[in-house]
């Protein structure tokens, strides 16, 4: 029963993160949303891996790898946000311009 609670919480976090990733204009907030999505997914995975009685170590290892990969992506994204703000003064993406 507890596992279901964690899995559904994970599912909700993924949805919330996807919403934020697509809808939030502030780029730093999008990075936060991306992290929520990832960690929600891992929670779902962890709950799934604990169903068979004994905890399966493989999902745990994959999740640790996933956390590190997510941090790497976040760090590059955050760096890009700061660099963009410094050079253009904006923390949102400029509108689509198929520059002539």
């Amino acid at each position, binding site marked *: 029963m507890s596992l279901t609670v964690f899995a559904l919480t994970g599912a909700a976090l*993924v949805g919330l*993160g*996807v919403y934020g*990733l*697509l809808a939030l204009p502030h*780029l730093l907030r*999008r990075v936060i949303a*991306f992290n929520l*999505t*990832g960690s929600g*997914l891992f929670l*779902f*995975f962890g709950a*799934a*891996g604990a169903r068979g009685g004994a905890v*399966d170590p*493989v*999902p745990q290892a*994959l999740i640790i*790898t*996933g956390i590190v*990969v997510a941090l*790497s*992506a976040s760090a*590059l*994204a955050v760096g*890009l*946000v700061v*660099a*963009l703000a410094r*050079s*253009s003064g904006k923390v949102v*993406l*400029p509108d*689509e311009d*198929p*520059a*002539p």
Partner: protein
Amino acid sequence: MTSLVVLLTLPLVAALAVLALPERRREPLGLLTVAIGLVAALTLAASVWRSGPVLLTLGGWTPPLGIALRADGLAVALILMSALVMSAVALAARFEMRATRVGPRAAFGFWVLMALLWGALNAVYVSRDLFNLYVGIELLSLAAVALVALSGTAKALAAALRYMIFALVGSVLYLAGVVLTYAAHGVLDIGLLAARMPAESDALALGLMTAGLLAKTALFPFHVWLPTAHAAAPAPASALLSALVPKASFLILIRLWFEAMPDLASSAAVMMLAVLGSIAVIWGGVLALVQSRLKLIVAYSTVAQLGYLFLIFPLAGGGGSVQPWSAGAWTGAMFLALSHGLAKAAMFLAAGICIAAVGSDRLGDLRGLVRHLPMTVAALALAAITLAGLPPSGGFTAKYLLMTSALAAGQWPLALVLVGGGLLAAAYLYRPMAALFAREARIAPRPVPRIWQAVPLTLAASAILLGLFSATPFDLLQIGRPEPAEEGL
């Protein structure tokens, strides 16, 4: 097997070495790396040719506990094409950096990122493990995004960020599918998944992974990040990004739909992919038509050319059903991936030469360049022949195979897309050609070394050769091919 290990580790070792060694060792090291890589790729191809797919269980642990790698004909063809493109880019980058007076920051970054990109590509081409593929494609995405941002302009940063956001959404969706797959089956190996007990959640898992990979492959409607990103990067980086990077995520799609879960390829699903591909062909072509900068035309052409690849899904039976035309469609799409890679890299490298010569890639500024840079213009023309699918290029072989399959399958709308896409390509490539061949020149160009000009010409010529000598690559692609088609037309 040794050559496979070399191909996996050499780029990574090279990246670490460039990081650790002093600056003056960088270029010789880069050139030595691509030379060894090219030899290893040829050795691996010869081995696959002689004795079939090369298998490698990492650490000696077989799946489901460990990770297995497999170099089949398709993987080795992509490895070889990538090694060729990498070698060309490494050669051209030296000249490009001197000509455009690239600072120490971008020069350093380019070599490391290029090596990392190569390592990620080779890892993805041969991996049979869905999670390992995730790590590989993340490495690929991060290196690619960093290459887009390399020039440091506000425009490049915005393009890199838009790319990054699509890549993030894509990786989350793909990972969600992987999680569901493991949660349902306890395995991640593609071969083991093919033999799984079907679960209700499989369709959702495949759908999520596919959506994520489409975002990374920039299939319509996820293409919006691609043109600005590819055009914003320095020309040698654009060549890598356009010619190679989308092929990796496309290959994973092929592995998923044809090898891991072919039972889920319903006719509606595969048709959906082909429809998106068809829209990409037309829409990318139309947008390429209205651009006035060479690099943007070439970048939009990538959107269109990637669209063709998705015609494979209904034409090769989606893996679900064996049809006599499947083999032709499957091989045709792979030929397109290979010839597009060579031609597109040639075009971006040639565009880099034009920029070095006249300081711009606006069509108006390129007028009359044929008299000063005949080799570069020849490279552009040969690459254009391949992209438009005219004989005797590799692009023609690809389109011919796809076309005969579409007609045999009675899919005439797809045949129309092939014809329309070819016409559009001819039209959007005519404009830069017309400018280059114009009588009067607007700008007196700076001289460009001939060796530099020979690099894209060689690539473009190899795309033509792929069409002239198509029998060997055709047979190579059949080695270890998934089963959806047993016989050709």
